[in-house]
C-alpha cells in the first residue's frame, strides 16, 4: 500500500475513469466543470472526445458502452450543459446502458441561490437514471464514484449521474477510492432459483411449439453461446426483439427474425401460435406484444430476467426466474432434452416461405430497404450498424442480415431521433478496426448533425447512410394510414446533405438511383475516413409488416 495521497475531486474522478479502464470520455466543458478538465489535462492516457452538443456526448458514450459492454463516460457542465444531457440519460435508462454522467455544478455555497448556470439537475435526473448523487463534499466523492461505476455495470445496467460542485472538484482529501463496494439492500441477481430452472426445463421439454424470445439481456450478459446451445439442442425457433437482433445468427435455420410492430410476419404469427414462450432478457414492451390481452393466447411463459420488476409487469408468467440470463441458461441447458420439433418448424418454414417479410421487391426507384441490403452486401455483413429512430431504424433492423452479436444498436426504448450519428462515433471509437455504418434519416440526422464536426476532427471512418425521403417518414406513414393522409408537419425541406458534410470536412456523396447507390457505397468503403451518402430514396415507401396500434400480433399486415 502506498501512502495516502491528497487528491482533488477532479483527480478522484479521473483516477476512477482510469481504473475502470474505459479509456474514452465524451463531453463538453463549461464553467463549473473547468476544474475537472484541468485535472484531466494531466491524464494523457484518458482520451477525451469533444462533442458539439451534450446530447451527442451522451449518445456517443451510450454507443461506446454498448459496443464493448463496458461503462461509458460522459461529462457536461452545470445548468444548460446538464439539461442537454437529459435525453441521452433517459435513453440509456430505457435501454439499460451503463453510462456515467458527470456534471459540474455551481460551488456549494451557491447551491439553491439561482446562481448563474445553476439547475437542480439531480432533481431532474431522478426518474431517468438508475441512481444519482449530488456530492456535498470531497470526502464523499471516493465512495460515490466507486458506487456509481458498480451500480452502472451491475445487475440491470443503467445510467448513473454524479453532480459535482465546482469547489468539490478542487477540494482535496486523502480518502482512497474503495475497490470493493457493497450497498446495503442492493443485491443484483445471479443464478436463477434452482427449482424454477427445473420447472422451466420441464416446460421446455414438454412443449411442442416453443419459441425463444431473445432480448437485450442476452447481449448485455453475452449469453450467445448458451443461447445457441439451448436452441440447437432442443430445435427451438429463435425470435429476437429489436435490441436482441444479432443475438443468434440470422442466417441460421432456426432464426425467425425480429417480432413486434414491424417484426417479420412469420415471427409474429409464430408467437401467436406457439405453446411456450421462453423469454430471455426482455421486457414485453408494447411494441413487442401488440394488444396484450391477445398476446400469445395459447402459450405459457417462462421468463428469465435480471430485473424482478419486469417479471409479470405486462404478462402473466408460468415460470418466473429472476436471474442473470447467462448463468441461468448455463444451469438450464443440461436439463434440456434434445428434440427436432419437426412439425412445428415445418409450419414456421412454410409461413416464412409464404410470407417472406425479409424479401425486397424489385423497383426502378431506389428503395430504402435496398440501400440497407446493399450495405449488407458491400460489407459482407461485417459491420456495426447504428440505426436512428423511425422508418430507417426498422429497415436497418429488417434488411441487414445480422450474423454477429453486438452489431446493431439503436435507441429502441426512448426512441430519440438523432441517436445514430453520435452513437456511431462512440461505436467507432470503441471498435476502431470495425466497419461502422450509421443508418439514419433526413429528420434524425438534423437533430445531431453538429457531430459531423467531431467525426471530422477525429477523422473516424464512420459511413453515414441518410435514407432521405424528405419526410419524417414514420409520422407520414401514420398520418397516411390513421389520419386520412393529412400530412401535417411531416414534410421536410432539407439542405443538400452532401454539401453540408463537405463543409464539415466529411466526404459527401449524393445518390438517387440503384446504380448510384451501389457505386456510392463502394466509394465510401474505399475511402479511409468519414463519408456521408445522401440517398434520395422513394419518398412513399412505408415500413411493413406492421402491427397497427391496438392490434394483436395475429393481425400483422403486410401492406
Amino acid at each position: 500500500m502506498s501512502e495516502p495521497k491528497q487528491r482533488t475531486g477532479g483527480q478522484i474522478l479521473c483516477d476512477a475513469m482510469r481504473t475502470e479502464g474505459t479509456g474514452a470520455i465524451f463531453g463538453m466543458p463549461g464553467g463549473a466543470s473547468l476544474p475537472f478538465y484541468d485535472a484531466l489535462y494531466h491524464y494523457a492516457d484518458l482520451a477525451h472526445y469533444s462533442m458539439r452538443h451534450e446530447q451527442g456526448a451522451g449518445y456517443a458514450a451510450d454507443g461506446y458502452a454498448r459496443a464493448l459492454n463496458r461503462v461509458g463516460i460522459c461529462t457536461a457542465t452545470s445548468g444548460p450543459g446538464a439539461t442537454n444531457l437529459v435525453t441521452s440519460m433517459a435513453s440509456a435508462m430505457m435501454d439499460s446502458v451503463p453510462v456515467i454522467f458527470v456534471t459540474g455544478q455551481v460551488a456549494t455555497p451557491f447551491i439553491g441561490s439561482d446562481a448563474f448556470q445553476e439547475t437542480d439537475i439531480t432533481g431532474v435526473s431522478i426518474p431517468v437514471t438508475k441512481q444519482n448523487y449530488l456530492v456535498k463534499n470531497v470526502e464523499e466523492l471516493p465512495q460515490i464514484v466507486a458506487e456509481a461505476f458498480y451500480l452502472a455495470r451491475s445487475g440491470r445496467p443503467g445510467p448513473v449521474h454524479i453532480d459535482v460542485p465546482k469547489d468539490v472538484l478542487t477540494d482535496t482529501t486523502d480518502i482512497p477510492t474503495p475497490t470493493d463496494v457493497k450497498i446495503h439492500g442492493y443485491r443484483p441477481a445471479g443464478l436463477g432459483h434452482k427449482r424454477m430452472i427445473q420447472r422451466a426445463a420441464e416446460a421446455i421439454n414438454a412443449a411442442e411449439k416453443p419459441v425463444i424470445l431473445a432480448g437485450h439481456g442476452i447481449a448485455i450478459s453475452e449469453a450467445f453461446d448458451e443461447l445457441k446451445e439451448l436452441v440447437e439442442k432442443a430445435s427451438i425457433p429463435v425470435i429476437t426483439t429489436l435490441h436482441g437482433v444479432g443475438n443468434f445468427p440470422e442466417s441460421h435455420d432456426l432464426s425467425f427474425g425480429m417480432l413486434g410492430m414491424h417484426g417479420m410476419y412469420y415471427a409474429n404469427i409464430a408467437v401467436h401460435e406457439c405453446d411456450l414462450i421462453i423469454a430471455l432478457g426482455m421486457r414485453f414492451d408494447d411494441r413487442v406484444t401488440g394488444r396484450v390481452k391477445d398476446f400469445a393466447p395459447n402459450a405459457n411463459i417462462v421468463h428469465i430476467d435480471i430485473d424482478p420488476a419486469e417479471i409479470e409487469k405486462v404478462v402473466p408468467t408460468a415460470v418466473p426466474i429472476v436471474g442473470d440470463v447467462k448463468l441461468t441458461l448455463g444451469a438450464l441447458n443440461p436439463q434440456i432434452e434434445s428434440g427436432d420439433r419437426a412439425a412445428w418448424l415445418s409450419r414456421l418454414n412454410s409461413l416464412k416461405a409464404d410470407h417472406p417479410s425479409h424479401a425486397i421487391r424489385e423497383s426502378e426507384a431506389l428503395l430504402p430497404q435496398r440501400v440497407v441490403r446493399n450495405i449488407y452486401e458491400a460489407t459482407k455483413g461485417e459491420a456495426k450498424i447504428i440505426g436512428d429512430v423511425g422508418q430507417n431504424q426498422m429497415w436497418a433492423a429488417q434488411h441487414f442480415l445480422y450474423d454477429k452479436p453486438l452489431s446493431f444498436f439503436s435507441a429502441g426504448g426512448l426512441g430519440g431521433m438523432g441517436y445514430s450519428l453520435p452513437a456511431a462515433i462512440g461505436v467507432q471509437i470503441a471498435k476502431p478496426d470495425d466497419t461502422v455504418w450509421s443508418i439514419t434519416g433526413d429528420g434524425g440526422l438534423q437533430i445531431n448533425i453538429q457531430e459531423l464536426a467531431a467525426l471530422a476532427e477525429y477523422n473516424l471512418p464512420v459511413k453515414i447512410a441518410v435514407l432521405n425521403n424528405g419526410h419524417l417518414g414514420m409520422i407520414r406513414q401514420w398520418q397516411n394510414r390513421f389520419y386520412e393522409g393529412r400530412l401535417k408537419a411531416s414534410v421536410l425541406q432539407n439542405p443538400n446533405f452532401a454539401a453540408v458534410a463537405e463543409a464539415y470536412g466529411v466526404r459527401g456523396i449524393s445518390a438517387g438511383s440503384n446504380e448510384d447507390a451501389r457505386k456510392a457505397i463502394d466509394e465510401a468503403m474505399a475511402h479511409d475516413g468519414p463519408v456521408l451518402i445522401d440517398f434520395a430514396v422513394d419518398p412513399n415507401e412505408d415500413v411493413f409488416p406492421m402491427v397497427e396500434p391496438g392490434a394483436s400480433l395475429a393481425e400483422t399486415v403486410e401492406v
Partner: protein
Amino acid sequence: MAAIEYSTLVALVQDHPGVLTKAAMLFRRRGYNIASLNVGHSEVPGISRMTIVVEGRGPHIKQCEKQLYKLVEVVKVLDLTEEARVDKEVALIRVSAHSAERAEVVGIARAFDAEIVDVARDSLIVEITASPYTIDRFLEVAGDFGILELTRTGVVSMSRGGNGAK
C-alpha cells in the same frame, strides 16, 4: 359506491438526502395514489422507515413493491396489507366548543381515549392517537360541534408478534 381498497407498505430506506423525493416521484410517475406517507427513524441508525398507504390491492401493488425495491436506497419493502398489524396515527383537532358545549366535547374525547391538549374560550385542541378508523369516527362525532382545524400524521404500521422486519 364500492369503498376504495388500500394497501399498507413499509419501506426501510437508507437515510440519504433525496430518498423521500425519489419514493414520492416513483409513486407519482407510475400512477399510484398515496393516501398517507409517513417517514421517521427506525431502530437501526441510518435507516429510516416509511409507512405508505396506497390505493389498490393485488398485482398492481406487487409491481409497486418491486419498483420501490429498484430504488438503490431501499433496503427492504414489507407489504403489511394482509398481516395482523398495529396501525396508529396521531391527529390534532381544534374543535369549536363554547362554554356550554365544552363539557360534552371533553366527555366525547375521553370516550375515545383522546387528550385535551389546549383550551381556549371558544375551542379545544384534542389530541388522539388511534387507528385511522377510530380517528374518522371521532371526527364524525366531533363534527357536530364544528371542526376548526385538523392535522393528521398519516399511519405508522407494525406487524404483530414475531421479531420484526429483520
